[in-house]
C-alpha cells in the first residue's frame, strides 16, 4: 500500500509546468486624461467560438496579487493604478491568455477565450479558481467541473457524478451498486441533492448501478460537507448542488455518446439568436434488449428500463437579467420474470430569475416543483395489487446579495416549501374481492427558513464568515394521531386513543436556530488555516431498513413522535498550495454530533405501515475523522490522493431496556469505514491519448455475525445479539481507462473512444456477508460480490 502511494507521488512529480504563451503586444487601455489612481477597467470574457459568457473565469493581476472571478455574464471589473500590468485570464478547459496592458484611464477589455481542444499536452484540472481553496472562507465546499470528472475512469462507460464525488475525502458509498453518498459519517438521506435548485429524492438508476444525472447536461457539481452556507438548509449532513448547463446563444451543437450499456444525446443552441438558448438531453439504457437476448427464460421475461431527460431554457434578456427554466425527469422500471414490476420516477421543474439590480445589489429568485413516485405492481395471478407512493415538494427561494466591496459581502433571504407525502396506497387489481384496498394516511408539512450571511476580509490575512438560519416546520392535518400509554414502549399494544386533526390543522411545530461560522487565517498567499462550525436541522427522514436507498423506501415527515434530526459540526483545516498551485494539499479534521437519527426495532415492518412510530427508535450519532488530500492540478500527470480516517457511531438508549440496541453502548453505523484511501491519476501519453486509473481501498463495513445457530421449523437459523460487531473483508479495486481522441475530416469523425476496465484484477469485493441455510447445503456464511469480475466497457462520444 505504502509503495503504491509513493509511486503515485513520484509519478505526479514528473509532469512539469509546460504551459507557454507567446508574448503579445502591450495594449494601452483607456483615454489618457492623466488619471493616476482608481482606473476602472471592466470587461467580459466569452467563448471564441460559441460566444457564450464564461462564468467563473479568473482574472489575475500578478503585480497587485489580485484575482477576480467573472460573474454570471462573464463580466469582471478591476480597479488599477496607472501602470503596466500582465493580466492573466484563466478558465477550466480553455487556453490561458496572458494579456499585457498599460492602464491609463477607464476602459473596457473584451476577451475571447479558445477551448484548449486538447492541443496542449497538459491537462488542467483546476477548479474555477486555482487559489480558491486557500483564499475563500468556505470550508469543505468542493466543486467538481465536468472536465475534472471526465479525467476519471468512467463507470460502465460514462462519467458518473455520484461515484466521482465518492473519490473525495470524507465522502463514501456503502458499496458497489449502491446509490447515495455518506458524507462525514452521515446517512444517505442527510444529503440534500438538488438539481437546478429542486430537491431530488432518488438520484439513481437500476438500484444504484447508474447515477440518474446525464453528465452532458451538467455544468458543475458542488458538495458542501463542512460549513454549509446559511442559504442552504433542510438536511443535516451535506448539500449536493448540481447545476445544469445553459445552451449556446450563438450556434447549434451537441454531444452524442454510445456505450455498451446506454446511449445519450444532447443538443443545444439558440432558440432566439443571442437572446434565448435551449438545451435538451436524453439518456436511455438498452439493458432490456440485452436481457431479452439471453436464453434463460426467466431472464428473457425480466425487464429493466431506464431513461432520463433534461430541458434547459435560458434567457439572458439583458446584461443584468437572466431567466432559466429547467426540467428534469428520470424513470426506471424493473420486472423480474414479469410478475412484479417496480417503477420509480423523479420529476423536477424550476424557474430561476437572476438579476443585478445595482452594481452592488443582486437578486436571485427560484420557484420549483419536485415529485417522486414509485409503484409496485404485482401481477402474479394471486391477490394482484398495485402499490403507489409519491412525494411532492413545492417551494420558492429568494436570495439577495449586497457587495459592500469585493471582500465584504452579505447574502440574505428566505425559503418556503410545502411537502406532501402519500406513503402508500394499495389497490387490488385482481378479479373478485380477495384483498382490501389499503391506504396509509397522507402526510403534509411546511417548512420555512430565513437566513443571513456576512462574509468579509480584514486585510490579506483574516477572513470571516458568519451566518444564521432560522428554520421552522409544521406538521399538518388531516390526520388521525394515536396516543400511547406513558411509561410503556410505543407499540400497537400500548395505544390508548386517537385524535382527529382537520385539514390544514397544525399537529406539531418544530423550529431551531442554525448558526454557521467560519474563520480563515492566511499564513501566506499559498497557505491558510480555517475553523468552522455549523448546525443544521432536518425535518424529513428516510425510513429504510437497508444500508442503501431502495426505490421503495418510504420518506417520513417529522411528527409528534419523530423529532427533527439535528447535526452540529466542528471542523478545522489546514491548506497549502505548492509550486504556483500545481499542488494543492489539505488536512481537515471534524467532529459531528447527530441527534434523533432514525433506528429500527428488530424486524420492523416499514412498507404500508400506518403507525411507523411503533417501529422506530431515535438514536444519537457521533462522527469524527481526519481527511488528507493531495492534488496535482497541472502537467502531463494529474490526479489526487485522498485518505480519510473516520468513525461513524450510533447509540440507542431508551427508557425501556428491551428496546436498547447493544445495551445502550456506542456501535458502528452501517457505513462506518475507518480507513478510506483513493488514488487517482490521469496521464497524458500524447496529444490524443490519455490513460487514467483509480485505486480505492477501504475498511470493510460493519456486519452482524450470528452468536449461535438454532433450529426452528425445519430451518437452521442464526441468533443475532449485538449489532454491527464484525466487519466484511476490506474493499480494494483498481479501475483503468484509455481514451483516444480522433481528429477526423468531417466533424462527425471527431470522436472520443474510451475503453475502460473496472475491477482490473477481478477482486470479489463483498458487498455483504450473510448467513443462509440454503437448500441442499449446510447453513453457512455466503458472500455477495456485485462486481466479481473485471468488467470492460467501451464508449464512443462525439461533439458536433
Amino acid at each position: 500500500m505504502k509503495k503504491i502511494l509513493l509511486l503515485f507521488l513520484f509519478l505526479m512529480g514528473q509532469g512539469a509546468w509546460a504551459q507557454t504563451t507567446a508574448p503579445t503586444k502591450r495594449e494601452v487601455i483607456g483615454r489618457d486624461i492623466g488619471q493616476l489612481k482608481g482606473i476602472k477597467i471592466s470587461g467580459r470574457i466569452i467563448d471564441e467560438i460559441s460566444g457564450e459568457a464564461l462564468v467563473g473565469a479568473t482574472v489575475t493581476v500578478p503585480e497587485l496579487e489580485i484575482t477576480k472571478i467573472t460573474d454570471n455574464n462573464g463580466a469582471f471589473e478591476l480597479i488599477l493604478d496607472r501602470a503596466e500590468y500582465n493580466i492573466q485570464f484563466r478558465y477550466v478547459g480553455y487556453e490561458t491568455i496572458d494579456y499585457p496592458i498599460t492602464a491609463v484611464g477607464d476602459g473596457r477589455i473584451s476577451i475571447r477565450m479558445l477551448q484548449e481542444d486538447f492541443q496542449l499536452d497538459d491537462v488542467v484540472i483546476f477548479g474555477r479558481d486555482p487559489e480558491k481553496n486557500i483564499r475563500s472562507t468556505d470550508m469543505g465546499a468542493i466543486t467538481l467541473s465536468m472536465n475534472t470528472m471526465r479525467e476519471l475512469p468512467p463507470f460502465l462507460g460514462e462519467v458518473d457524478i455520484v461515484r466521482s464525488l465518492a473519490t473525495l475525502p470524507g465522502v463514501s458509498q456503502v458499496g458497489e451498486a449502491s446509490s447515495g453518498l455518506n458524507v462525514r459519517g452521515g446517512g444517505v438521506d442527510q444529503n440534500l441533492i438538488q438539481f437546478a435548485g429542486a430537491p431530488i429524492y432518488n438520484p439513481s438508476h437500476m438500484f444504484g448501478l447508474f447515477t440518474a444525472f446525464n453528465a452532458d447536461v451538467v455544468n458543475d457539481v458542488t458538495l458542501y460537507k463542512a460549513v454549509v452556507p446559511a442559504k442552504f438548509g433542510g438536511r443535516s449532513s451535506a448539500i449536493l448542488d448540481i447545476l445544469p448547463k445553459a445552451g449556446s446563444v450563438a450556434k447549434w451543437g451537441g454531444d452524442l455518446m454510445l456505450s455498451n450499456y446506454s446511449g445519450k444525446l444532447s443538443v443545444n443552441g439558440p432558440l432566439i439568436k443571442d437572446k434565448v438558448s435551449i438545451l435538451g438531453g436524453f439518456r436511455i439504457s438498452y439493458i432490456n434488449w440485452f436481457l431479452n437476448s439471453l436464453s434463460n427464460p426467466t431472464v428473457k421475461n425480466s425487464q429493466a428500463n431506464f431513461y432520463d431527460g433534461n430541458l434547459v431554457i435560458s434567457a439572458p434578456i439583458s446584461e443584468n437579467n437572466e431567466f432559466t427554466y429547467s426540467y428534469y425527469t428520470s424513470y426506471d422500471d424493473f420486472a423480474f420474470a414479469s410478475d412484479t414490476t417496480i417503477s420509480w420516477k423523479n420529476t423536477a421543474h424550476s424557474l430561476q430569475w437572476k438579476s443585478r439590480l445595482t452594481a452592488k445589489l443582486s437578486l436571485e429568485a427560484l420557484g420549483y416543483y419536485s415529485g417522486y413516485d414509485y409503484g409496485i405492481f404485482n401481477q402474479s395471478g394471486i391477490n394482484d395489487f398495485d402499490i403507489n407512493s409519491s412525494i411532492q415538494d413545492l417551494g420558492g427561494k429568494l436570495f439577495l446579495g449586497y457587495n459592500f466591496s469585493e471582500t465584504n459581502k452579505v447574502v440574505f433571504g428566505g425559503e418556503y416549501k410545502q411537502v406532501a407525502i402519500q406513503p402508500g396506497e394499495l389497490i387490488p387489481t385482481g378479479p373478485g374481492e380477495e384483498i382490501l384496498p389499503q391506504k396509509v394516511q397522507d402526510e403534509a408539512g411546511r417548512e420555512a427558513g430565513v437566513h443571513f450571511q456576512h462574509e468579509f476580509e480584514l486585510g490579506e490575512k483574516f477572513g470571516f464568515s458568519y451566518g444564521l438560519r432560522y428554520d421552522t416546520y409544521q406538521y399538518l392535518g388531516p390526520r388521525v394521531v394515536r396516543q400511547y400509554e406513558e411509561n410503556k414502549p410505543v407499540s400497537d399494544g400500548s395505544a390508548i386513543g386517537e385524535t382527529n386533526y382537520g385539514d390544514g390543522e397544525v399537529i406539531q411545530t418544530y423550529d431551531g436556530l442554525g448558526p454557521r461560522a467560519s474563520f480563515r487565517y492566511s499564513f501566506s498567499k499559498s497557505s491558510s488555516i480555517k475553523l468552522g462550525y455549523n448546525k443544521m436541522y432536518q425535518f424529513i427522514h428516510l425510513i429504510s431498513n437497508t444500508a442503501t436507498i431502495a426505490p421503495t423506501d418510504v420518506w417520513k415527515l417529522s411528527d409528534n413522535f419523530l423529532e427533527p434530526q439535528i447535526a452540529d459540526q466542528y471542523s478545522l483545516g489546514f491548506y497549502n498550495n505548492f509550486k504556483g498551485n500545481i499542488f494543492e494539499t489539505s488536512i481537515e479534521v471534524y467532529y459531528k454530533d447527530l441527534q434523533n437519527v432514525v433506528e429500527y426495532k428488530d424486524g420492523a415492518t416499514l412498507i404500508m405501515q400506518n403507525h411507523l412510530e411503533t417501529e422506530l427508535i431515535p438514536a444519537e450519532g457521533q462522527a469524527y475523522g481526519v481527511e488528507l488530500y493531495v492534488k496535482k492540478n497541472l502537467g502531463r500527470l494529474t490526479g489526487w490522493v485522498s485518505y480519510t480516517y473516520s468513525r461513524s457511531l450510533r447509540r440507542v438508549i431508551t427508557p425501556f431496556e428491551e428496546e436498547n440496541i447493544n445495551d445502550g453502548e456506542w456501535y458502528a453505523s452501517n457505513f462506518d469505514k475507518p480507513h478510506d484511501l483513493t488514488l487517482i491519476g490521469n496521464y497524458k501519453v500524447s496529444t490524443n491519448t490519455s490513460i487514467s486509473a483509480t485505486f480505492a481501498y477501504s475498511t470493510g463495513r460493519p456486519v452482524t455475525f450470528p452468536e449461535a445457530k438454532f433450529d426452528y421449523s425445519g430451518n437452521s437459523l442464526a441468533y443475532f445479539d449485538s449489532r454491527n460487531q464484525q466487519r466484511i473483508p476490506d474493499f480494494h479495486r483498481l479501475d483503468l481507462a484509455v481514451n483516444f481522441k480522433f481528429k477526423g475530416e468531417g466533424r462527425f469523425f471527431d470522436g472520443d473512444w474510451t475503453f475502460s476496465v473496472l475491477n482490473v484484477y477481478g477482486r470479489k469485493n463483498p458487498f455483504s456477508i450473510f448467513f443462509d441455510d440454503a437448500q441442499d447445503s449446510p447453513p453457512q456464511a455466503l458472500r455477495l460480490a456485485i462486481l466479481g469480475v473485471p468488467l470492460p466497457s467501451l464508449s464512443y462520444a462525439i461533439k458536433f
Partner: protein
Amino acid sequence: MLRRLVFLLLLLPMACIDPYQVEVPDGQQLLTVEGLIHTGPGPHAITLTRSDTYGSVFEGLVRPVTGATVVVRDNEGKIIFLTEGQEARGSYFTPSGFRAEIGKSYTLQIQTADGKVYTSLPERVESVPEIEDISIKTITVPVEGETTPRSGVQLISEINDPADQNNFYFWRLGPITHVLEARPDLFVDRETRTPAPKDCCFICYRTEVTGNQSLFIAVDDNFNGLSTRIPAAFIEDNSLRFVNKLRADLKQYAISQEAYRFLRLVKQQAEISGSIFDPPPATIRGNMISLDNPDEVVLGYFMAAGESTRRIYIDKSDLTFRQIPGTIPDDCRTVFGAVVDPPFDWNP
C-alpha cells in the same frame, strides 16, 4: 419481493454469491424451544434443543435436550405432563386425547436435567376459520445453469376471514401420501450386472413428512372480513411425487400476534438473499424466559393455536408443468416409507 432484485445484478454477468470462510464467534449453548399445541388431535410435540456455533461448514451440532420435565399449564391451573419420545430424543409429547381449548391460555414450563427452570409467557388459543377450499398452482423456479427449472405445487387456502377480529394465520402441512410407480421389470442384479426382472411391485403408496423450507403465514390487515385466497404450502416435485396422485393435509392455525411477529422474523431470516435490500439481521426473541436468571437468553417460541384441517388429492393432470418422472428400476417396496396397500382412508 425485493430480494428478487438481487437476481438482476446476477444477470449482469458480473455479480456472484459464493460461500465464504469467516471467523464466527464461539456459539452459546442456548436452550431452544419449538412447540405448538392446538385444538386438533394429538399428540402435540414440544422440542428442546441447544444452539451452537454458527459454523461455516458443519461445525457445531444442534443437540437435543433430553431428560427434562416438560408441562403445559392452562389458565385454570390444570397441568398436563408431556413425555419424552423414545426415539425422538428431545421431543416431548402431550398425552393422547389432549387438545387445546379455544379461549384458554396455556403456559409451557420446563425444568432441565440440571435443575434450571424456564417458563413461557401465556398464549391464548383463538378460534380459526375453516379452510373453505384448496386450490393449487404450479410453480417453476429456474435454476442457473440447468435447462429444467425446479417445480412444485403451491397450495392456496381459501378462507372467509372473520371481520370482527384481527387474525394471524400460520399453515403447516401434515404428512403427504402419494402413489409411487416403479419398474421392477427393469431390475438389474448388482453383482452380475444382468437383467433380473421382478414381478412385484409396480405401484406403492408412500407417506412422507415434507419440511416446509419456507414458512407460510399471513395477517388479515388487508383482507379483514373478506373471502380470500392465500398461498399456504408448497410441495416440491421431486420427480416421484406427482406421477399419479398425491394427498396432502393442509393445517391452518390461528396464532397470537406475538407468535406471528416471531414467525415473521424467522421467515425473513430464512429468505435472506444478501442483497443490498436485505434488512439488517434481527434478533429473534421468543416468549420463553428463565426463572433462575432473567438475563439468560432462551430461543424459540411456544405457541397455542386453534386448528382446522382440509385434505386435497392432486392428480398429475392438475399440474401445468411436471418434472420428467423418475424411474425406479426395482420393487417399489424398497423405497423408504412405501407400502403396497393404500392408507385405509385413501379416497381420491
